[in-house]
């Protein structure tokens, strides 16, 4: 893409063709809901198109849209599940496997998507944004209208649960 001009319709199509699956996957990991993930990508595309004159050509169009899509996904969760990001209760949630979980543990796929289902919204979002999207803790806190300490605690809880889950799965 040349510098100094806004991205064209064709360039948007190219970005969709090559990266829409990544945008959707990131949004799906955040929302855990396919319809919401698709809505987030749709909103991101419309928003990116409307604001394309603000696109900085020292970055990549698909990366820019990716970030907008992740933000849209976060907004959708806050809108649809407003309690998700209320101040955290620092009590560690009971992450012991339920009998049903244990019973079906052998059936679970050993992938991140499955493991992430055992995290609360705030834990999952903090983990996805930190680990997969590589946001800074400060950025996450700002995006969630929270503080770095709260985000750290959510991340620690998420990591602990995920590690435990993976150990359990590997042990079955």
């Amino acid at each position, binding site marked *: 893409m040349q510098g100094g001009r806004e991205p064209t319709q064709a360039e948007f199509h190219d970005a969709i*063709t090559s990266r829409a699956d990544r945008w959707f996957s990131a949004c799906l990991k955040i929302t855990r809901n396919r319809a919401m993930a698709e809505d987030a990508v749709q909103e991101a595309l419309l928003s990116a198109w409307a604001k394309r004159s603000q696109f900085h050509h020292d970055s990549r169009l698909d990366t820019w849209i990716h970030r907008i899509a992740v933000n849209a996904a976060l907004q959708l969760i806050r809108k649809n599940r407003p309690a998700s990001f209320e101040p955290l209760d620092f009590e560690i949630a009971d992450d012991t496997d339920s009998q049903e979980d244990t019973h079906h543990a052998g059936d679970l796929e050993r992938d991140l998507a499955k493991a992430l289902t055992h995290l609360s919204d705030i834990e999952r979002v903090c983990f996805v944004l930190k680990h997969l999207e590589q946001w800074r803790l400060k950025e996450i806190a700002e995006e969630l209208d929270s503080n770095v300490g709260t985000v750290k605690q959510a991340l*620690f809880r998420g990591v602990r649960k995920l590690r435990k889950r*993976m150990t359990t799965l590997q042990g079955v």
Partner: protein
Amino acid sequence: MNDDKLTLYYYKDGLTQGERLEVTNALVADAELAARYKTLSNELSQFEGAEIEAIPRDMMLRFHDTIDRAANMERGAAPQKSPPVHFWSFFWGAAITATLALGIGIGVWFSGDVDQAAGEPLIVDITPQSDVVPVVFQRSMQNYLRESQREITELPMDAEADRLILILRLIDQNRLFEKAAVQNNSPKLARVLRAFEPILVQLASDDIAPEDAEALRAQLAFELNVMLTKLTRDTSDGRQTNTERT
């Protein structure tokens, strides 16, 4: 040292430079801690290659369509380049003529005596009318006139693209109600509605002087109000079955 601190060390985030140095030194000095960190790193790295879900073709098409629709909408909303001045000079004259004709037409229609108002009809043709006018149509027409009056009053005169979109929508609605009027035995009403269109087109022009636009807008709002008043009066008088009869 707990695993939370090691987690932050792994992410290279959330620790001060001094804290990072402290962890580094501890890892060098403590083999057990180093082993714990290795385990933590290995486990976290399992999540690095999180799978990317291939999206279905129909979803991919919807994403492409989103951009096409946004681009098309933008093109549709863009104000037209100003046509040559001579065209608008001609059109301005036509619009004034249409406005005058509309005013006379509404006046004649409002007087309720078209046949005898003049030796020859102006814009209101004399058409035999024998069927009744459905009350549903009259109610819809009232709503349309009321809504159009409000939209014209609130027309954004300082935003050309928005004004153009609103006027195009008004023209579309006007045409629909004009057809409905014909189908509901109200040809005079249809003609009055038809006479609105050139004025609306003129109002959409991007080179119209603000005072001229304001005058046209005020006149349209007034004429709509006159029509609305007549329709409302006829309906409340129970004359909805023969509005166009004089």
